């Protein structure tokens, strides 16, 4: 066998085995490359999470650390806390409105801009611009715009505009109305982030080959059907990615709430992150603040881990 092997084959085998040896060195290099980041993440993320988790099980109130064991008492009290119950409901509502708003408006804008629009660059910049502004400023401006005014002193902000253009029927108490509350804050957040989603979808739409649409058209599909059956399914990875990025913003939203509405009337615009800040740094209840952080992290895990596993699996299939 050996003898009969042609010279070129020997050369290839040799090169392969060399490459293989190199590969194992390369694997070491690959792992070494990750090492600093992994070390940093394990300290600054996981050790800190562990620290927070530990504090949430202690009796630490006041500025002197008190590591006396409290078990799950902080969690029990937290979930009994009326403010926290409201916060959890608000987070769900905020996330739903914010995500839907960003995805629907972002997709709509992307589809519109994808129709070979004159001045596309200008429109794109306009829609992306809000992202450049910090949440704190967004909060203040939107607080003014959604300030309802009163019948006695006159309407202001958006309500005033609605009156002027004859749509006075749509006037509302906005965030001062407990039934709307947090949804108004989600509106402001969607204003800020929907441009990002638009950019993602626009990029995705441009990446779909024209032949696919043509083929569907030949099969007699209407434009709407093409979007429903072909394009939206193809864009699913983008949608999922956007949901993750937006989801982490919505669970952590803090600056915007602080600047725009604060806790609101009867905590109608309060969120866990704001409660955590309030109780930790205003009330010095470090144990309670830590417990809120842990609950937030668990919520994140519930949201994101299935997504991550899903992505990994679907990639493995490719």
């Amino acid at each position, binding site marked *: 066998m050996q003898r009969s092997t042609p010279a070129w084959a020997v050369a290839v085998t040799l090169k392969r085995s060399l490459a293989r040896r190199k590969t194992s060195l390369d694997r070491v290099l690959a792992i070494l490359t990750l090492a600093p980041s992994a070390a940093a993440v394990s300290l600054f993320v996981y050790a800190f999470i562990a620290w927070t988790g530990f504090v949430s099980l202690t009796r630490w109130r*006041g500025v002197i650390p008190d590591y006396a064991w409290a078990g799950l008492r902080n969690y029990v009290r937290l979930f009994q806390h009326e*403010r926290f119950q409201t916060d959890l409901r608000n987070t769900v509502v905020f996330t739903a409105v914010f995500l839907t708003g960003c995805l629907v408006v972002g997709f709509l804008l992307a589809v519109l801009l994808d129709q070979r629009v004159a001045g596309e660059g200008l429109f794109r910049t306009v829609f992306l611009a809000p992202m450049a502004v910090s949440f704190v400023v967004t909060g203040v401006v939107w607080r003014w715009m959604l300030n309802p005014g009163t019948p006695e*002193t*006159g309407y202001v902000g958006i309500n005033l505009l609605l009156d002027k253009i004859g749509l006075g029927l749509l006037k509302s108490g906005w965030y*001062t109305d407990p039934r709307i509350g947090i949804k108004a804050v989600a509106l402001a957040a969607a204003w800020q982030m929907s441009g990002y989603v638009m950019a993602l979808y626009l990029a995705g739409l441009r990446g779909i080959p024209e032949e696919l649409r043509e083929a569907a058209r030949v099969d007699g599909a209407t434009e709407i059907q093409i979007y429903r059956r072909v394009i939206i399914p193809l864009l699913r990875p983008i949608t999922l990615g956007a949901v993750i990025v937006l989801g982490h913003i919505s669970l952590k939203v803090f600056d915007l709430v602080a600047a725009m509405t604060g806790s609101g*009337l*009867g905590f109608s615009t309060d969120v866990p992150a704001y409660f955590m*800040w309030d109780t930790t740094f205003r009330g010095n209840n470090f144990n309670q603040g830590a417990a809120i952080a842990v609950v937030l992290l668990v919520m994140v895990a519930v949201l994101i881990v299935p997504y991550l596993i899903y992505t990994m699996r679907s990639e493995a299939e490719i």
Partner: protein
Amino acid sequence: MARMRAVRIVFSVLAVALLVSASASAGTTQFRKLEVFSWWTAGGEAEALTALFDEYYKLHPDVWIVNATVAGGAGSVAKAVLVSRMLGGDPPDTFQVHAGRELIDTWVVAGKMEPLDDLFKAEGWDKVMPGGILDIISYNGHYWSVPVNIHRSNVLWYNKKVFQTYGLKPPRTFDEFFQVADALKARGIIPFVVGSKDGWELGHVFEDVLAGVLGPEAYRGLWTGKTRWTDPRVTQALQTFKRMMTYANSDHSALTWDGAAAYLMEGKGGMLIMGDWTDGWFTAKGFKDYGWAPTPGTAGTFVALSDTFGLPKGIKNRDTVMDWLRLLGSKRGQEAFNPKKGSICARTDCDRSLFNEYLRSAMDDWQKDEIVPSVIHGAAASESWATAFKDTVALFAARGDVAAAQRALQQACEDAGVCR
């Protein structure tokens, strides 16, 4: 070759860095240092702080002051930064803190501050400051911080023109308040303007209602356990507050207090209950037709808050801090600071001619009134208690359940360890 060059570059960069840091430290050793941590970042209060620094430089030209300021909602961001730094192991040389329980329950009880009895005695401050304020800054028989100014919480501001037009007088009692409110309402004017966006403003109004219904002695007792929170007078205060809120603007949760003050300024609103920084705001807005009175039931009572500085343990620049504190308590320092800040001196011997009309009237009251501590501005209760108080009042304003609110107030007192 390339490697050699890289090594050489790294070494030369290191050498330069060393030189720079050496020269930087050489530069600072000539100066003694003082880091002053506060939330006075803008407007009159920042001007006032600069005026204090200028006085300090005149006395100690060899000191380099680091002005570490953090703004944000009456100091809430500043508190977070302060806590992180203190617990992280980097205390500022001296920091601004509200007089009273905010300092005491947070930092004094924790053993992080040094008492200042010698300083007070040497400078004779216990003679020139009223007993009411000395009580607020004392704990276990020691003084813990130097008050640089006094603000008043219980002021009722009104639009003079509106009151004149309809022949009204500022109300002295709650009955009069409601009469005036009805009269204003009948004219289509918002009787009682409120801004509650930041959460503390309603607590501010309610503390003044408590002081008005209970009187100074019983009000003070609420925070020491002598007056019970289950007292019927607390019920009455809650009911009064609830009724007052029915006269408030419906958009109060959308406004910060200055938004409410704007209604008053524009003649759309009649009365506002807010601290005396309102005076400075009206001035900045160029508005002159405002009048003031103690809030209903509090004539002769001065609900006080005060900004103070203390001496943390284990700091690097103790000498310069002592000089700073000495300046803060002095006549010279307080006269430089307060006219600009829009507050009055904690001392009673400041030159009246330096102050405007409102502040002169506050100075008179400061001399003769009963002084009681504000809760929402840190004087009366620990911060966790004050936070619970604030949240309870905010929820009460939305729900209006008197019994539940009173239970929650009692619970907060128990959690604080003052009530059984």
